[in-house]
């Protein structure tokens, strides 16, 4: 398309001939820095940009590419941030040059409560995010509540100075020093602490003092954090407000599970574990289920199997015996998600329907359990359970039960017993492989 037809008598087409509503529709589709540049061209455009920013820029993501193309200098970058500051609450800096952050050094952006600094792991030298930049965060963002740092060259020295922080996530920060974490846990009133991502890399930190932070509700760590210098498992289980504990483990899944499901010194004041989730490939389901059986008060169990690449993408097989044993040990279950497995027969799964009197949801997404015969057997059992006050929800998406079964007369006649859902995808499909997640009763 060309900019104008050179007719001599007609004026060149101008963007400003469009009305404000249309201009707003266009402007909101360009990146926030371009919105700023457009706003500076003209008072009418400025008011349109301001109107958009009043409602649409609470969360802003900045990438280096936005500024490199137009050759934005420090003064221009500063002017842009100060113009945007009154509207922003959450800022994500994605591989931004840290020198741009340092330009803000003598300013205060009080409205920002959440910051993500997602660094470039390949940067070296002066352009990496270092301890002094954490001090800068304290000055520039005095009201920071949530902080995520990735690929930063920090030791953790000044994190304890971010006094209002209640969520901290450290990802691929390879220079952390354990000695700084005592002050961090003692001084901050953290609710969430996450040091789990990319912890295959050298993200080792002794978290022996994690228990000094009684406000913690959600912890995400790796298996080796549980027992660096000493076993901190019991201390974690004693945290008074703990709601969720996620532990990534590549090779020690059984060990982690047994430490928590069968603690050697059970904490007197520990709260029961009511939910457990795991996604990954296991090579000893029998052992895994044996440990799971110790979580006697479990209400929600969620297991996501993964196809084994060496076996040509076949689903992992679960034997009836293991499932029947587990069903007898977990009578309090209200939700069972057994997704992506090949079952030996329907019998193992049916044992849960028989034994778990509170069972409301049975999720067999991606699982192969002998198709419709499982559904009819299930219905037969449910028909005899006179104490049931609500139907069992059965989620069958991508399983070997055909979705058309929902319309079958037999199912339609028994909606008071079983409600089949062929669309539900189940909670948290984005769970990481190898993560054991425990949820505690409130």
């Amino acid at each position, binding site marked *: 398309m060309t*900019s104008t037809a050179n007719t001599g008598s007609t004026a060149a087409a101008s963007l400003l001939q469009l009305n404000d509503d249309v201009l707003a529709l266009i402007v909101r*589709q360009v990146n926030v820095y371009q919105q700023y540049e457009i706003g500076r061209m003209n008072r009418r455009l400025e008011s349109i940009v301001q109107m958009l920013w009043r409602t649409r820029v609470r969360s802003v993501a900045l990438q280096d590419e936005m500024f490199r*193309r137009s050759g934005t200098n420090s003064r221009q970058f500063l002017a842009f941030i100060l113009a945007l500051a009154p509207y922003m609450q959450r800022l994500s800096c994605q591989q931004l040059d840290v020198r741009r952050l340092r330009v803000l050094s003598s300013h205060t952006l009080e409205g920002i409560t959440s910051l993500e600094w997602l660094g470039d792991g390949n940067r070296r030298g002066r352009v990496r995010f270092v301890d002094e930049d954490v001090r800068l965060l304290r000055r520039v963002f005095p009201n920071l509540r949530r902080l995520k740092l990735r690929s930063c060259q920090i030791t953790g020295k000044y994190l304890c100075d971010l006094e209002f922080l209640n969520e901290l996530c450290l990802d691929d920060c390879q220079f952390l020093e354990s000695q700084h974490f005592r002050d961090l846990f003692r001084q901050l009133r953290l609710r969430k602490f996450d040091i789990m991502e990319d912890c295959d890399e050298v993200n080792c930190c002794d978290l022996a003092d994690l228990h000094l932070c009684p406000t913690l509700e959600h912890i995400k760590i790796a298996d080796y954090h549980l027992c660096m210098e000493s076993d901190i498992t019991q201390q974690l289980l004693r945290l008074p407000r703990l709601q969720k504990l996620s532990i990534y483990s590549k090779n020690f899944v059984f060990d982690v599970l047994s430490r928590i499901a069968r603690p050697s010194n059970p904490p007197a004041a520990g709260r029961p574990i009511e939910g457990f989730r795991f996604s990954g490939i296991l090579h000893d389901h029998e052992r895994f289920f044996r440990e799971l059986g110790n979580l006697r008060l479990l209400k929600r169990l969620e297991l996501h199997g993964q196809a084994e690449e060496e076996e040509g993408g076949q689903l992992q097989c679960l034997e009836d015996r293991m499932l029947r044993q587990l069903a007898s040990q977990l009578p309090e279950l209200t939700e069972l998600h057994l997704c992506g497995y090949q079952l030996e027969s329907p019998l193992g799964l049916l044992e849960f329907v028989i034994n778990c009197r509170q069972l409301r949801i049975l999720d067999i997404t991606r699982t192969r359990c002998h198709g419709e015969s499982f559904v009819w057997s299930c219905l037969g059992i449910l028909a005899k359970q006179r104490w049931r006050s609500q139907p069992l929800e059965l989620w069958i998406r991508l399983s070997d039960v055909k979705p058309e079964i929902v319309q079958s007369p037999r199912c339609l006649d028994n909606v008071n017993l079983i409600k089949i859902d062929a669309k539900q995808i189940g909670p948290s499909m984005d769970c990481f492989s190898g993560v054991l997640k425990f949820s505690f009763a409130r």
Partner: protein
Amino acid sequence: MPSVFLQLETNDGKLHIVERALVKQMGIIREMLKLECGDTTEVIPLPRVDSETLKLLLKWCESMKSWTDDAEVSVRINILKRLIQRSGGDDEVLFQLITAANYLQMDSLLDAGTQLLANIIQSYDSAEELRLRFSIANEEE
């Protein structure tokens, strides 16, 4: 029984006889027909649309008819680009189409048109280049 055709009068006084099914994509006419209980033999005035623009809008509607589900925006943008290129290819045509789409409540065209303009804006590296391309006067001038 409602007539298969409708009469639309553009702002240059020209009368256009168009298929009812085609103009149902124009929200404002669709609503008007609902109020008239679906049957009108009267001429429907379009004071903000000229003849040439209406012809292009009808070509757009014709293209959209063959999509049973809503086409993805990238597909719609390509259709719009071809339409504009065949009509001389300048910004004025695009602006007229977007303005008309906004007035006539043609959401699929409005989305495609505004996205296309946004894409053009994003292809420029500097504000000055944008100012020149889209004839945005400096307010000091």
